[in-house]
């Protein structure tokens, strides 16, 4: 409780409070624009935080994450194009309600549901993360290896539809982490005679390249695109009675979103679709779904914002990112000299609790901004992509340069942008590569330390309870897509018969 009070006092300092505000505002703007995603926004914001203290820097990034997750619903409701992938399910009922002339009500419900889901998940984060960290502090290298491999195995369900491509992307990410000086033997690997590569490849240029530069090249493919917002924000905000009518949906989606968020590599997109489906399944009027019903907005919006706090739990307590965006946040923590994991709670207690309170505040802040400024945010959709895309690439170049004042990072970023663009064309997603890159070092160090400490015995991973549990979960996680597709095929065959 004392730590929470200290966190609260820290966040109330003007600079930290301002960081939350800027993060939420930036997040809502980025989220509202179709094509700009939360991980991209966080990656682009990192360079602006280099010179900041850790508390305002990390709270700004986390606030952007929360703001962007809600911001995605603005475009989903007004123009039927989700601002972020996590808002895709919101289009099902949000847009039809806007078409009925009740865009204000749809946006209001999305905002309230998002805020409630977000606040619920932050409370779970505050309660659960320290407990998880306390368990994880007893982990040795074998447990960490098994845990990191489990986190990586979960990428089979991230981004692209192909399990093999996702796993291959993750493996490529782990391989990129191998470049540079080997931390145990001290010998260099894959540096191709380039001095810059001897230090390894930094996360940030790769993340900015894969998330932001790739998107600019994809926008070039689309060409000039103007979004026409012909819908006025009209219709009253949801009434107290209407909010009360979706309270069960809100509670269910909060639980679903937080749980999905906790699972390594799952994120807001999966949470929002499950939130929508479950809202429909338990609804007394499922036939109204798709025609502009409030439950259909509350379900996905509450779940995707609940996933933000959920995703922060494994990121902060275990150092295993819960989503693509938290993988970028994890990279930012490392840039600011903090290694996420159980030791973070001992070494940087003040920062951790300030970030938790900052995230709580961010959810309250976008509630106010969203309800009060929906009309203004709808204007952001009018900014054409041919103005935005070159500016994003300028930010990519300047921001990457600012990391080490080094042009080599800029070239790495541009090459990653190019590779990301090509890989996307072949069905590979960026998030698994980033996750692999972030977890690569942890996997290598814990594997080799385990083998050194336990005299080259590979069975050590199967003889320790936690390690064995994570390995079983990994096997189950990897087999799950195969089992699901087998069940689906069987079901189809039976139907045909």
């Amino acid at each position, binding site marked *: 409780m004392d730590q929470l009070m200290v966190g609260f006092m820290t966040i109330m300092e003007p600079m930290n409070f301002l960081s939350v505000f800027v993060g939420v505002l930036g997040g809502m703007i980025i989220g509202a624009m179709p094509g700009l995603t939360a991980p991209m926004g966080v990656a682009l914001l990192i360079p*602006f935080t*280099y010179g900041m203290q850790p508390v305002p820097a990390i709270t700004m990034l986390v606030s952007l994450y929360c703001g962007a997750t809600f911001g995605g619903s603005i475009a989903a409701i007004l123009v039927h194009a989700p601002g972020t992938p996590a808002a895709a399910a919101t289009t099902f009922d949000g847009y039809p309600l806007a078409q009925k002339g009740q865009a204000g009500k749809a946006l209001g419900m999305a905002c309230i549901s998002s805020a409630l889901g977000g606040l619920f998940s932050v409370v779970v984060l505050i309660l659960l993360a320290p407990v998880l960290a306390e368990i994880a502090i007893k982990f040795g290298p074998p447990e960490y290896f098994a845990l990191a491999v489990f986190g990586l195995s979960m990428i089979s369900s991230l981004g692209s539809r192909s399990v093999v491509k996702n796993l291959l992307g993750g493996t490529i990410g782990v*391989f990129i982490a191998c470049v540079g000086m080997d931390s145990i033997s001290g*010998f*260099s690997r894959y540096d191709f005679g380039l001095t810059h590569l001897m230090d390894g490849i930094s996360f940030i240029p790769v993340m900015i390249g894969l998330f932001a530069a790739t998107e600019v090249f994809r926008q070039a*493919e689309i060409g000039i695109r103007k979004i026409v917002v012909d819908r006025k924000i009209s219709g009253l905000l949801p009434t107290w009675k209407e909010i009360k009518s979706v309270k069960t949906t809100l509670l269910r989606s909060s639980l679903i979103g937080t749980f999905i968020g906790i699972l390594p590599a799952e994120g807001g997109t999966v949470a929002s679709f499950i939130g929508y489906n479950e809202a429909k399944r338990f609804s007394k009027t499922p036939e109204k779904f798709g025609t502009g019903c409030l439950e259909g907005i509350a379900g996905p919006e509450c779940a995707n914002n609940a996933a933000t706090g959920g995703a922060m739990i494994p990121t902060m307590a275990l150092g295993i990112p819960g989503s693509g965006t938290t993988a970028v946040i994890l990279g930012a923590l490392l840039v600011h000299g903090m290694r996420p994991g159980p030791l973070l709670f001992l070494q940087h207690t003040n920062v951790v609790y300030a970030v938790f309170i900052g995230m709580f505040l961010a959810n309250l802040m976008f509630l106010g901004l969203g309800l009060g400024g929906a009309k203004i945010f709808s204007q952001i959709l009018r900014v054409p992509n041919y103005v935005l895309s070159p500016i994003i690439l300028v930010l990519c170049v*300047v921001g990457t*340069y600012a990391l080490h004042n080094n042009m080599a990072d800029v070239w790495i970023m541009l090459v990653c942008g190019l590779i990301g663009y090509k890989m996307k064309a072949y069905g590979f997603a960026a998030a698994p590569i980033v996750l692999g890159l972030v977890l690569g070092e942890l996997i290598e160090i814990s594997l*080799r330390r385990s083998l*050194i400490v336990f005299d080259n015995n590979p069975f050590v991973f199967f003889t320790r309870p936690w390690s064995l549990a994570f390995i079983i979960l990994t096997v189950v996680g990897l087999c799950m897509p195969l089992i699901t597709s087998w069940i689906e095929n069987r079901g189809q065959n039976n139907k045909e018969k």
Partner: protein
Amino acid sequence: MNNKDLRMALVLMVIFIILYAMSFSFQSSGVVKSHTTAAFFPRVVLLVAMFLTLIMIIQSIRQGPDAAKKKMDKAVVKRVALTMACAAGFGLGVVYLGTLVSIALFIVATMVVWGVESKRVIIITALLTPLLIYLVFNQILLVQLPSGILI
């Protein structure tokens, strides 16, 4: 057969084999066990990658032709390629011409490539962006941006 995936998988397989072969040239102290050498982990990762690529090859052979087999319009390919060239030129420009001038030139070039017709939009964006970058990075964040021969 899904030629697109097969092509990609074969290219990846060749890259992984080359990288695996390269790991034999890593230095090691000679007296250490295999798992403590610098090459141990990259080899494990590359073996996993090769295994996954093999699955991808088998899948692409067994699969039917790619459903979304649409060729990109030549104009689109040209626009993407030119945007990439503009980005590379921007990177070089930052070193030789300086950041602010390169930003303005890059924005003009990209917008022209994309077919933006409004000169007013191009000029305003090309002037305001370097100004904002200068204010935020140079003046607020105190980042010394490369100046090249110009500014």
